[in-house]
């Protein structure tokens, strides 16, 4: 069973998607560790270390995602999480922006996959299974 960390980063309190993501991931057979809303990068990293997780699904809905996710890859590596998968999704930037640009920016920041607003979480589960079997 794969362990994945989910949570909502930063000062973000959007809880609904987070609860549903937990529900769906569990249905898919993942061992889900949900650190909930208002979680810092540190919270994510600590949870991943503690539970030996293989992936983090970072949600950001409220628009500050770009700032909250800065150096997240570097901070993971520093903490010894060398090969952990990093996904991010939600409404990760302020306003309606061209998604290709946004994706680029987050990929540069070291995220493995970036999802546009309202993405199907089932699709992400499939991606996760694929990426984890590599």
């Amino acid at each position, binding site marked *: 069973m794969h362990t994945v960390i989910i949570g909502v980063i930063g*000062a973000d*309190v*959007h*809880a*609904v998607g987070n609860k549903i993501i937990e529900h769906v991931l569990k249905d898919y057979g993942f061992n889900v560790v949900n650190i909930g809303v208002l979680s810092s990068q540190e919270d994510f990293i600590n949870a991943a270390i503690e539970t030996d997780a293989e992936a983090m699904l970072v949600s950001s809905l*409220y*628009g*500050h995602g770009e700032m909250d996710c800065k150096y997240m890859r570097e901070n993971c590596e520093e903490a010894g999480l060398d090969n952990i998968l990093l996904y991010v999704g939600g409404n990760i930037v302020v306003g309606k922006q061209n998604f290709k640009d946004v994706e680029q920016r987050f990929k540069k920041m070291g995220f493995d996959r970036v999802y546009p*607003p309202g993405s199907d979480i089932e699709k992400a589960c499939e991606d996760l299974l694929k990426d984890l079997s590599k």
Partner: protein
Amino acid sequence: MIKNKKMPLDTFLSIREEILKGWPTGDDPALALEESVKTLKAVPKHKNFATKLRRAKEEGVTLIQPRAGVALIDEHIKLLNTLHKKGGADFLPSTIDSYTRQNRYANAEDAIKQSKKAKRSMLNGFPAVNHGVKGCKEVADNVDAPLQARHGTPDARLLSEIIHAAGWTSNEGGGISYNIPYAKNIALEDTLKYWQYCDRLVGYYADQGIEINREPFGPLTGTLVPPSISHTVAIIEAILAAEQGVKNITVGYGQSGNVNQDIAALQTLESLSNYYLKLFGYDDVFVTTVFHQWMGGFPEDEAESMGIISMASAVATLGGATKMITKSSHESQGIPTAEANAEGLRASKIVTRLLKGQGFSSSKALKAEKELIKREVNELIYATLNVGKGDFAQGIIKAFKSGILDVPFAPSEMNAGKVLPARDKEGNIRIFEFGNLGLSDESKAFHKKALKERAKHENRDVSFKMTVDDIYAVSRGQLVGLPKAMKESLL
């Protein structure tokens, strides 16, 4: 131990001293009460939120207000003027950014700098505390409509001081409604105190002859919240505010999507608020209602979003709301551009104008839904008062702790999170999992029956799956989240 009791002036003043030290902008002569009273008294009538609400109520019109806020002052002023002049907004907001909401003013300061560099707002709102009285007054002076702070701040004491001293005449929030949906582990005991302070400040100004509007945040999580739950919170927050001397209160409600339920909710929200305020001895509070256009997830499509917005406007107007908070075609994507926001306003406004004064005549179904809501609100209010041994502040703390009050999908650990809602066949929001919610067995039986009927119709069990389908439903063009098999049979 916190009680629903008016804060003595000296207590208020001594806390105030501490509060103003929370960030350098608190140290501003404009925050001396003699000064702020002057500033507020100089606000012209047409820019006073409370006064304009009174006039609107008299004329029986539904006025509109968007959400909006960006990091920098000039940009923010430009944005508000676009919304006022091109959108026809009757009331202007300043949506506060999320760092400020968490009192993370240092983060906000960083983001202001980054925004200046990046030439686009890196914040999801206007950082009023960082801009201080000076910045906030600059905003007030450069727009021609009443201004309100809209946020979600558990501890908004410094924020409230600053905005009122800058001549902003309304403040959204409350000790419950800006905690349960907006925080994770802040005690209700604390937020109730914080908001007693904010209300006491408004009460202080009231004593100086200045009317300021206060608005509990009605929709809570905006996600399948049954009207009886959000009404109970709104009414209790109104009572807590009134105790501190607030005289002009706007209670709110987020659209459910079923027209009958929505109109019943709007009408009972007003009548019950007035009833309970009077019952508990607050005789001179002026109550209005605010209807929030659909607060759940929006569809991606812009035209569909315009459809929802406009339909909501019809409901608000027919239901007699005095104010409506509008959304935009960008809702599902991100904070709207000024243009998209203004479009949402214009679509909304024409509907409110066309339907002005038409009303919604009472029917059996409307009466039944109103009776239902009234009964449930009564049950929840008395259950709360009961555990509070007659005190609403204590009641709130204990009711949330034990789940007697319980808000679906709230992030707060102070919330039991046991209640699970779903829609009945007609799309009314009902409950199937009650946890410890303070409803009578009779009330519960009604909900269960309604949802069983739907389940039977859809040939499946009532379950969390149904709730999830309902959460997605509107964004996928349905009100009642149907199972896949039934979707295909739709023409």
